[in-house]
């Protein structure tokens, strides 16, 4: 149990996917200008991460046993296809949900966080539940970083940011500052 908690917390804050492991930076930079969007992006991310974790558990247990060297190609094909399928289904079944979450799905497919999760999960030999805790923690961690960044960016939109810092320069410096702040969580629950 405490192992699961640690995996969860580690992925959430200590080794936050975005701020400490540099995974999923493209959406972090791109979709973090409004809090609303960031929240939805985060939700979509959690969903895809969980789906990924489940399929990775499945693939590792049944398909890749004999050929671990095929994992990159297998993971990417399966994840990309599943996301696409889910997207198409949502688009048809619930246009509302699609507007809220669906439009972010294709963005997420080509996002390091997803494949990163798959590979970390495999490398660390996480089982089903551990993988799930990892995925949820990572997803929430991504969402946290996204939403914090978005609310800060909304604030700086009203500020007299010098012209050279407008845009990504400032975003990266904010990310760096957040990352400095998150260093405070280092060693959480493992210092005993």
């Amino acid at each position: 149990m405490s192992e699961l908690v640690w995996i969860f917390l580690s992925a959430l804050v200590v080794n936050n996917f975005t701020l400490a492991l540099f995974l999923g930076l493209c959406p972090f930079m791109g979709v973090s200008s409004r809090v609303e969007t960031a929240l939805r992006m985060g939700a979509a991310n959690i969903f895809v991460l969980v789906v990924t974790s489940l399929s990775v558990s499945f693939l590792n247990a049944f398909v890749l046993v004999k050929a671990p060297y095929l994992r990159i190609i297998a993971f990417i094909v399966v994840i990309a296809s599943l996301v696409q399928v889910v997207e198409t289904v949502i688009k048809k079944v619930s246009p509302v949900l699609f507007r809220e979450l669906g439009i972010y799905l294709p963005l997420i497919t080509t996002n390091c966080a997803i494949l990163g999760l798959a590979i970390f999960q495999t490398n660390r030999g996480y089982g089903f539940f551990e993988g799930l805790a990892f995925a949820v923690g990572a997803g929430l961690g991504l969402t946290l970083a996204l939403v914090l960044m978005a609310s800060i960016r909304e604030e700086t939109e009203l500020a007299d940011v010098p012209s050279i810092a407008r845009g990504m320069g400032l975003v990266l410096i904010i990310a760096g500052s957040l990352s400095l702040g998150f260093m405070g969580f280092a060693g959480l629950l493992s210092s005993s």
Partner: protein
Amino acid sequence: MTPSNIIDSIVIVAGVCLVFGALIAIVHGKFRVFEDPRIDATVELLPGTNCGACSTPGCRAFAEALVSGEQQPAACTVMSPEDREDVAELLGVEAGQANPRVARLLCAGGSDVAVQSAEYRGFESCKAAAAVAGGGKGCTWGCLGLADCELSCDLDAIQMDARDIPVVTPDLCTACGDCVDACPKDLFVLMPREQHLIVQCKSELEGDEADALCRVACNGCGKCVLDAADGVIDMVNGLAVIDYTQNVSADPNATARCPTGAIAWVEKAQFESPGGEG
């Protein structure tokens, strides 16, 4: 090592591809929603300034209107003619005729000729000044010279000159209308470029009262009405008003006897460009 792992791996990868390819195909067939791909293609050809000169709320909306045939490519005044042809070709429509317009200022009362009756003490914005006793300018209709219009123009077509009057560079102006929205005194109008006769004043004061506040005000003397062709100019509330439906008969003569120079014949820029000698 053994060839068996070759077979294994081919089977695994091909199998995964086949299974998921089929899944996608099926789901796609069942759930597809159609969206005209030409919209995206058109957006890529548009300039992307999102200026609104085409009277739609942005380039994408304009692309949708183009695809649906509600608009003609020429409505976008920012695109170069070649680009316009590209778009027309992509959509298989006529490019249409552009009717170039330009922003004109209905005031010439710079700080050298117009009276400032009280000093405005507040932050520098025409909108803000207009909310405080009209900004302290003697003529309540006139330009406050605090450059809201200059800031609003994304295309840098407006520059304030040394007399605090905004000067529009006609070649840069796309007639997007931002300055019209920005000016709290409603001094900008978008006019076709071939309208050359302009009354550069909105003051409703007459005679000495008008003269006292601004040396270039229209004081309602009525000489231009007499000098212009019939029906081109009329006096309303002590101000000369041009009827642009009669524009064909307008000529520079109307400006000849104006005692203040309020009425002007403008070919290019309204005032001397601040980048020039002045």
